[in-house]
Structure formats: C-alpha cells, structure tokens
C-alpha cells in the first residue's frame, strides 16, 4: 500500500505530464497541417459533384462474366466489331444471355480462353442467324430478344407482339456487297404457335402487297418481304430499292422460307375460309373474345364481296360439342340484345339469324365448325352467302 501512487481522493492517478521531444512535436504539427490541407482539398473538390467520377463502369465487370460450368445464362461479353459492321455502343442495354451465348459459340475475340468452353445448353435457343448466300456479309452479331425485353429493339411496338404471345425475336443485318451502303435486315419473330404468328402477321399485313409463291401466308412490299412460316413471322427489310438490294432481299426471304420448318397447326379455320370473293389481304386472326363472345376463340375472319355488298365472315374450328355450345351461347347473347330466328338447316348445318344493334348476323354450326356472316347491313345477302357456303357453292 505504501508504494501505491494514488491520490488521497479515490483511485485517480496523479497527473504526470509526458515530456514530448521537439522532433515529435514538430512532426505532429506537420501531420496536423497535412490533415488540414487534405480537408480543404476535399472540401473544394466536393463542392461540385462530378457524376463522371462516380459513374459505374460496367466494362470493368467483364472479367467476372465468364461462363460457369453447370450454370446457364452466363457467357462472355459481346463480340468486338466485325469488319464492315458496327458494335453496340457502351450505353446500349445489356443484351440477353442468349446473344452472349451466341458469341461464345462463334468464338468471339473477347471470349479468349472462355471461347473454347462448350456453350451452355440454352444456346440452342440462341443459335446465330446464318444465311448461306453469296453476296451478303453479316454486319453484326445476331441479336436476340425475348418477350420481356423486346422493347429494347422495337420499343412501343412491342406490346402488339406481346399480345400474340411472342417468344423471341432473332434478327441480324447483312450488308449487300454489290451495293455500297445497302443492307438487308432479317427479323424472325417466334411465337407460341403458328396461329399466334399468323395473328400478328395479319395485323400488320399490307393490303397492297403482292403474293409470294414460296410462302402462302406472305407478301412482298416495295422494300421487303413479309411472311409466316410455322410459328415464325419473318420480316425481310431492305435499306433501299436498288435492284441488287431487292434481289438479295428476295433470295434471303426464299432462304428463310426454306430453312424454317413448316407448321400449320391451328390454322384449319384459315384453310376453311373460302377464297371466292375474298377481299385481298383482309384475313385477320382473333385469338379470343371474337365479337365479344368468350366462347369464340381462335377465330379467323375475312371480308367478302358478294352481290354488291361487303360481308365480314368468320370461322372457328373446334371439337363438335364445343362448337355446338358456342353456337348456342352466341344465339342466347343475340336474343338478349336483339331479335333471333332459327333458319332451316342446310347440308347438316344449323343456322340462326339475328338482328343486333341494327346489324345482321347469320351464324351456322356444322360438326366442329362454327361460322357465319356478322355486322351485315343486308339480311338476305348474309343468309344467301352462308347457305351457299354450306352447300359448297362458295369455295
């Protein structure tokens, strides 16, 4: 206890000032001075925020996107520019993984060591658009978009395609070697079904387009070719109307019609629409709620010139019981909002006629086929048309 150096008031130690050598004293002053300078510098720099200084540079993450074995959707970054082509600018939205997979499959220069790695299985969906034709050269990599990011390519047009269940857009540009500065764009929109593809094709159809020998659901425009092949809606768009460009556009269209698999599932209704009197390119497809009826689905419609009148005609093909139920339901609806009368059956087809909101409908059902004229101004013309159709006199 005698050796303890404690004050008489509690356990507080006596204050003993440490002697600071002059060198340390000066060093501390220098450090303090430097801190003040740094503080002032930070204050001056911080007065004006430079967004460029803090911008995220996504290219610095390139090294982290090498494909991971067993994990889809990871692949090297986009390929570098190809001779005569162009690349996406840095700010362009990131491309879907499928495109990156394509680059990998093509062995992109940036792929480096990773390029030798086998592409992930999902790359099948992202197969590059290769066209084996002389006189063209790809301007860029194949681009891929799905329903969610389709707007990145076609912006405000995307919802129209989404309405028909688009799955994917695959597109690529090809320069025309024989015409400097000319190019041909190839767009392949893949839909859920051939019916969906037809619906979108019909919506955008050019009524003045010329028919195509190599694609029944197709037409040629002044600057391109447009057709449905299976579940794919193909657009071949030329940059100009030079003969060299248009010749290659046609060759590309023929190539795509040949390469893409034919598939007309669900298009039976389309095939049943009579050709006689049909107004060119008036065919449309309504996936559901045709004429406001929940029971009318996957309906094909077209306009016909008949006895000086223009008649809209529709056909739906379904199971016989479904068709019968839809016919009855349609009849009940017409009865609620107008007047309905049953007409004599023709060639196995039941028919009713109705006047709703001042317009005439004549609707038949025969086995699995439901159809008829709607929104007609003249009841007689509508009835005659339907009866002739059922007798096979309009084909």
């Amino acid at each position, binding site marked *: 206890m005698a050796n303890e150096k404690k004050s*008489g008031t509690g356990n507080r130690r*006596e204050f003993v*000032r440490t002697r600071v050598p002059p060198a340390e004293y000066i060093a501390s002053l220098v450090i303090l001075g430097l801190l003040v300078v740094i503080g002032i510098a930070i204050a001056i720099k911080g007065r004006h925020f430079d*967004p460029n200084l803090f911008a995220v540079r996504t290219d610095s993450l390139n090294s982290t996107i090498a494909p991971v074995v067993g994990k889809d959707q990871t692949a090297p970054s986009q390929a570098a520019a190809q001779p005569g082509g*162009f690349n996406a600018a840095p700010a362009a939205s990131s491309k879907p993984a499928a495109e990156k997979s394509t680059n990998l499959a093509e062995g992109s220069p940036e792929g480096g060591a990773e390029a030798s790695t086998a592409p992930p299985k999902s790359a099948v969906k992202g197969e590059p658009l290769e066209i084996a034709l002389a006189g063209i050269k790809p301007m860029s990599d194949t681009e891929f978009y799905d329903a969610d990011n389709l707007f990145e390519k076609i*912006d*405000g047009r995307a919802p129209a395609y989404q309405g028909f269940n688009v799955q994917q857009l695959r597109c690529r540009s090809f320069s025309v070697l024989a015409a400097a500065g000319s190019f041909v764009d190839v767009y392949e929109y893949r839909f859920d079904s051939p019916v969906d593809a037809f619906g979108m094709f019909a919506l955008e159809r050019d009524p003045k387009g010329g028919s195509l020998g190599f694609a029944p659901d197709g037409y040629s425009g002044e*600057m391109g070719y447009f057709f449905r092949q299976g579940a794919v809606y193909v657009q071949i*768009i030329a940059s100009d109307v030079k003969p060299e460009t248009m010749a290659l556009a046609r060759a590309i269209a023929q190539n795509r019609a040949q390469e893409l698999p034919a598939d007309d599932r669900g298009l039976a209704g389309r095939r049943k629409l009579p050709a006689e009197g049909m107004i060119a390119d008036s065919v449309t497809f309504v996936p559901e709620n045709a004429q406001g009826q929940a029971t009318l689905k996957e309906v094909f419609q077209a306009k016909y010139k008949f006895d000086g009148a223009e008649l809209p005609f529709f056909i739906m093909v379904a199971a016989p019981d479904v068709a019968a139920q839809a016919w009855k339901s349609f009849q009940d609806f017409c009865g609620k909002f107008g007047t309905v009368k049953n007409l004599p059956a023709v060639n196995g087809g039941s028919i009713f006629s109705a006047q709703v909101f001042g317009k005439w409908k004549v609707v038949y059902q025969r086995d699995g086929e439901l159809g008829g004229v709607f929104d007609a101004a003249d009841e007689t013309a509508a009835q005659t048309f339907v009866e002739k159709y059922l007798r096979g006199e309009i084909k």
Partner: protein
Amino acid sequence: MSASNHNDSSSAPEDSVSRREFLLRLGVTGALIAGSGIAARKLWQPQHFVPGFGKEKGLQLRSYAPEVSKVLPSLAIAHGTEHEKTIRAAMAALGGMGRFIQNGDVVMIKPNVAFDRPPALAATTHPDALRAVAKLCFEAGARKVVIADNPINSPTGCFLKSGLTAVASEMNLDLLYPETNSFAPLSLSGEILKEWTFFNTPFKHATKVIGLAPCKDHNLCHASMTTKNWYGLLGGRRNQFHQHIHSIVSDFALMMKPTLVILDGMNVLMSNGPTGGRLSDVKPMNTIVAGTDMIAVDAYGYSHLLERDIAELTYLHKANERGLGNINWKDTLYKEVQA
C-alpha cells in the same frame, strides 16, 4: 498516503500545468472546436448529394426558349417537295434562323433515331432534314452543332442505318453517342417524371436546343412527334413509363423548353408505328411544321398530317391543361407558306 502525494507532485514541478496555461489551452481548444463547427456549417450543402448517400437531387434543365414575339409567328407551316427548300421556307416564315441562332452558339439538335431503320421507312429523322437544319444553323453563325439521341437499341446501328452518321460526317457535326457516364439525375415536378437519369452530356455546352422529329403513328400513344421526341433523352429502363405514356409525354413539355421544334411531315408513317417496316405505311404529306410551341406544332401534325381527331391525343390535352403549350394552334400567331 499524503506524504507520497506530496513527494510525487514535488518531484515533477516542471510538468505540472499552471492555472494560466490551463485556461489558455482550454481557450484554444474551445476556439478550435467552435471554428470547426462554423467551418462545417459554412461548408454544409443541403442540396449536395453523393450517389448512395441519402436522397438524390438532380439537375434541372434551363430554358432554351427564345423571347416571345408579338409580331413574328410562333408557328410556321411550309409545303413543298424537297426537305431543304421546305425547311428554309418554314424558317423564313418564322423570321429566319437568325431569330433563334446567333453567332457563336452551340446548337444541340435532337433527332429521333429510335430504331435502326432506313430513312425511307420514316421511322426516324430523315437525313435530308438534319442536313438542312444543320446548314441553316451554321449559316446563322452557330459555332458548333451537336446531335445526340439515346436509342434503346444499339445507338451506333441506329445512327448508321438511319443515315445520320453520314450527315454528321459530311457536315462536321458532333455526334454524341450515349455512354455510361453521359447521364445525370434529373429532377422535375412532372405528373410522372420526378427524378430520372437523363442524357446530360449534349447539354453541357449547348446554348440552343432544336428538336427535329418525324411525324409518325405510335402503337401506344397514337403519335410520336416533337413532344414525344424528348423521350429519347431519358436513360434507364424507361419502358416502365409506357404504363402512363400520356402523362410522361406531357411531362416532356415541362422538362424541355427548346429554342425551336421542327416536325418533318414530308413523309409520314401513318400506320404500324413507331417502327413501321413497309413503304405502304408511309404517306407523302410534303409538309414541314416549325415553331416554338411543341404542343401547337404537334396539334397541327396530328390533325393535318396524321389526319386524326385531336380529341383522342390525351398527352396534348394534358400539356394544354397544364399551360405547357397551346393545343389550339389556330389561336397562335401562325403562317402557312408554299416552298
């Protein structure tokens, strides 16, 4: 204990602190703390932000609008068959490009280059229109003409295929592609647009701004003309605004106060917009509309070039109701000429 204390204090008398020194040091320390507080208060910026730290506050665009004239027209409609002649006629009707562009100006021209479509399909600003407007700017004394747009699709591809890269090269225009560091947060008291990333680089040195838009059908908002054209300055996933397309487009009339807007109605994309794809979608209307009120310009475009009922174009009505322009273009001082 007391003896021990006494010995300790007496053994280091030179280290003890005198009352005077204690007060002096206390005063210096207090002064330093007070000084730091005052300096911090002085340096504190309530509006200052660093991304990731607190709420962001963005830039606000200044107005590039010219002084309102009670004598000269604010809207000109010119009919003709060639871009340059017709644009010259429209500008002459407004009082000449010299009314808007002065010596030494840096002019930012905002074309619509949203898609990688060829010019003939009328989905993008036509290269002949850009050439004519840039030429007029230089003739009026512009020191530099900058063109910029932020297409969602590849900007290089869009500028190349639309033919604007070639015009930029030919006319020695500064073509600014959007890059990662080209954007800054924008603040606006819009109906929908509050704070959003904005393609700011082209405006850093611009003294005048001209919107140069094609007149075309649009699947979502009926029409894309001079007001909708500013959409191309937004960054980020701007498609989310599609849910409120009319509100966002009307906000552009608040966001941007341009020097001049020019609507190219020489060839109008009448259907299947905004992308088009068929020449049959395009109709020659041989008209250029120029003016200082984008709402009035678009009102003319919608009713006379797209030939539709103005009552259905909600975004123009919204902008008109908010006092951002005059949908009744005939009530403005306008002049119609033949090139």
